[in-house]
């Protein structure tokens, strides 16, 4: 086996040194009745070339030559080449969690830089070293708010990503923590502020909204914050599209921000691994879940970094920990750090502008077609929008597929009231000709009365 660095003679030599006759002597403690005496029924050992061929075939079967307007929490952006060059350095790739600070300063300083960048982007004071993803990050942010406030009720906007809401429900289910869901205004696609004000009480731990929300609409964060804070509840803002922060005002009125950083140079990979992160106001620091890198000095006064405030964590506090999280998404956070360094202060803004422009053009081109209508038309948006058509979405999305275009995502499965509505996303990688092509296919619809 090519990964195993021992010759048969060396194995014999080692067994002899141990004083064992045969390798199975070392497994003698396992009761004989449970020992596996046959080969595992898995594919036979394969050569590297066979492995590559297998996965290439799988990739091709996935159909690679389709243009796509899918977003909805997973965004296609260009990934600068240097990201993979750098994260594939063995010193980053094959290193463990930096508990031994003297020989993991590289990872630790990179985390410190990541924390700083996330804080700068979100307008929060501090950020952690990452969470699994945006959905679990939002759920953990709610648990954090409950620890901070000592309150047990959650208020969640229905415009938060439906799968994030499902995850939150799972996290809260067995703790008997009631959740109220607040709808949106049909015209604007924004949280219904009146309903929100009615739902938030002195028992509310936090209000969770997403902005830009699942429809791509930017929420009125200052107004929502005022409603939450009036009753002493915290405001958690979930951000599924991190690039939006290049041009959208950061949610500085929030107490906690939970962000999915996938857009910062992380491949779609059929939904993971991604990179969640929690940022917050400084006063809530000690209730934060997950790892934190902090600056300190060594014995000679040199600057260095360590994992810190670990008394919040499971390996110290066990059942009293702020979370059970241990392994996070460190290497993906490094990808995001490199991405943000490549684009930098000006690039993230410019990139966001390109996204804004592409989406505006797409929305205009598609909604100009007969029978098509742009929903939430007058609300501020980033790079996603909802299109409603007279023709059933299944029909024309199939026509698009025939043209090798994956169109918008049907919303009916989550929002039954949004019949024939689809969620479209146009990022900087979508070419104008693709957009025009999609509009043409849509126009070919048989117009019905």
């Amino acid at each position, binding site marked *: 086996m090519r990964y195993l660095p021992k010759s048969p003679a060396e194995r014999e030599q080692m067994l002899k040194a141990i004083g064992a006759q045969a390798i199975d002597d070392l497994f003698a403690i396992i009761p004989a009745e449970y020992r596996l005496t046959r080969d595992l029924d898995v594919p036979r050992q394969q050569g590297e070339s066979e492995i590559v061929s297998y996965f*290439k075939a799988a990739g091709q079967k996935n159909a*690679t030559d389709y243009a796509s307007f899918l977003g909805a929490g*997973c965004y296609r952006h260009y990934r600068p080449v240097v990201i993979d060059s750098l994260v594939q350095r063995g010193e980053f790739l094959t290193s463990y969690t930096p508990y031994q600070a003297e020989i993991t300063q590289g*990872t630790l300083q990179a985390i410190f830089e990541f*924390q700083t960048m996330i804080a700068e982007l979100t307008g929060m004071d501090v950020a952690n070293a990452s969470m699994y993803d945006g959905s679990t990050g939002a759920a953990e942010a709610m648990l954090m708010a409950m620890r901070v406030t000592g309150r047990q009720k959650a208020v969640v906007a229905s415009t938060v990503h439906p799968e994030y809401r499902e995850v939150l429900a799972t996290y809260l289910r067995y703790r008997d923590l009631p959740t109220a869901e607040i709808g949106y205004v049909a015209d604007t696609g924004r949280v219904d502020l009146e309903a929100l004000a009615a739902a938030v009480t002195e028992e509310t731990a936090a209000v969770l909204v997403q902005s830009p929300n699942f429809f791509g609409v930017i929420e009125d964060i200052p107004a929502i914050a005022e409603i939450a804070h009036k009753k002493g509840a915290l405001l958690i803002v979930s951000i599924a599209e991190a690039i939006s922060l290049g041009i959208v005002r950061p949610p500085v009125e929030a107490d906690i921000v939970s962000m999915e950083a996938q857009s910062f140079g992380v491949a779609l990979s059929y939904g993971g*691994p991604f990179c969640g992160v929690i940022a917050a106001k400084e006063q809530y620091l000690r209730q934060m879940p997950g790892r934190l890198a902090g600056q*300190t000095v060594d014995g000679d006064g040199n600057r260095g970094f360590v994992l810190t405030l670990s008394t919040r964590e499971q390996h110290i506090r066990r*059942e009293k920990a702020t979370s059970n999280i241990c392994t996070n998404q460190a290497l993906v956070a490094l990808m995001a750090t490199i991405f943000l360094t490549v*684009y930098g202060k000006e690039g993230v803004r410019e990139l966001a502008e*390109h996204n804004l422009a592409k989406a505006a053009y797409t929305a205009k081109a598609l909604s100009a077609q007969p029978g098509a209508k742009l929903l939430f038309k007058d609300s501020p948006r980033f790079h996603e929008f909802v299109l409603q058509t007279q023709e059933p979405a299944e029909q024309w999305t199939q026509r698009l597929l025939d043209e090798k275009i994956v169109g918008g995502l049907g919303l009916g499965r989550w929002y039954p009231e949004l019949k024939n509505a689809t969620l479209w996303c146009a990022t900087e990688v979508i070419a104008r000709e693709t957009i025009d092509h999609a509009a043409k296919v849509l126009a070919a619809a048989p117009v019905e009365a």
Partner: protein
Amino acid sequence: MAATVEQIERKTLGKVRPHQTQNEGLVFEKSAAGKRGYKLPPLDVPEVDAKAALGPAYRVEKAGLPELSEIEIIRHFTRLSTWNYAIDLGMYPLGSCTMKYNPRVNEYVARIEGLADAHPYRPESLAQGVLEVIDLLQRCLIEITGMDTITLQPAAGAHGEFTGILLVRAWHESRGNARRKIIIPDSAHGTNPATAAICGYQVENLKSNAQGGIDLEALERQVDEDTAALMLTNPSTLGVFENEIHKIADILHAKGALLYMDGANMNALVGKVRPGDFGVDVMHLNLHKTFSTPHGGGGPGSGPVACKKFLEPFLPTPVLVKKDGELHWEYNRPQTVGRVRAFYGNTGMFIRALAYILANGPDGLRQTTEDAVLNANYIRKNLEDLYELPYKTPSMHEVVFSDKRQAAKGVKTGDIAKRLIDYGFHPYTVSFPLIVHGALMIEPTESESLEELDLFIEAMRSIAKEVEESPDLVKSAPHSTRVSRLDEVQAARKPVLRWRHENK
């Protein structure tokens, strides 16, 4: 005195000689306005007046991100990387962490077009390739664990524990009573009690017996109709196989409680014995331990949960099913515990884990386990005369010593660990499991050659000698790293968790 330090620094020690690492500031300190590391193509659609389009939602002040050129970016992160120790540089014997070789073909195939760029909401008809990969991995893991069914959704080991305990709870609830407590041995990882707590269970500690294993009599006394499950790590964190495992399962099952297995130490079992065959009801795997996906400085991981048939109705949604020869995600599952994360899990890790299984095959997987156990026992044999072995029970894939003899000289396990760095090794796991005072938890994995093992043994023996002759040398280690011991107290007392522009 300075000369002595000089000598220490220049001497070849173990497998290393000191080498120079370059200083490097924070990325923000290297920034200067107007430098660029990117170039966007010209915009092929009309520009939008962002201020007008966004109104009050427009971001006036740009985020304080650095501005660097590409060569500086490459140098910055490359220099940082040289400050890390890594498996690629040598043995990384962190007990319980299974720091094995991360095959490079795994990285290659995870980036293949069609897999790396597949959107999770693409139509299933266009995703059959990736679904087949997921399906094959699921079948392999079910076979390896001897369980009936699996979910790959959890993002890491602790997330898998959470999912597994949710299944336990949902099953009990379906029978009318969620029960109140989860029993956890005192040798368990901290994630176990933290998980039980977030699932709304009380944690009851189970004291280990004189051999460091489960005390059957104590277990029998503790398990009652209020016990939902026992969370058991097998082999234990001492690297010891619970040889009365089936009696443990029987005691639990007799009272209607379930056996949860923490699969952190599965590297000792693959191809030799299957948890499903010895009474486990539900367990998680760590693809980033047993199945070679890289730790990446702390993640991403992947923590699939395998279970017996009776728990299947409760699995997180969606579940992969085959209908008319095509794979589909099934969402309509009335008894599900719900989603534990968005989309389907860390698919990039599934691809890597499957590549590892294919590269091994049944014979390679078995040989891997045998080599991991052989290596641990070889280390044990060669160090047990110098380091205290608190439990004499046979070791599987890892061996746990204590610092009892060295502590008599004032040298603790943490000191020995730091000194090991000077010899060119990453330390073992320090002070865990908690049932061993001053633990040295060593897991070599199968990836170490006899030569590397001998160098490690030589280093550990040399340190034992240093403890006798010059304990201060060990207590003040490491001496060869670019920073010396860092002030953790200051870091926690006055937390500095980010750089600030006004510092520049």
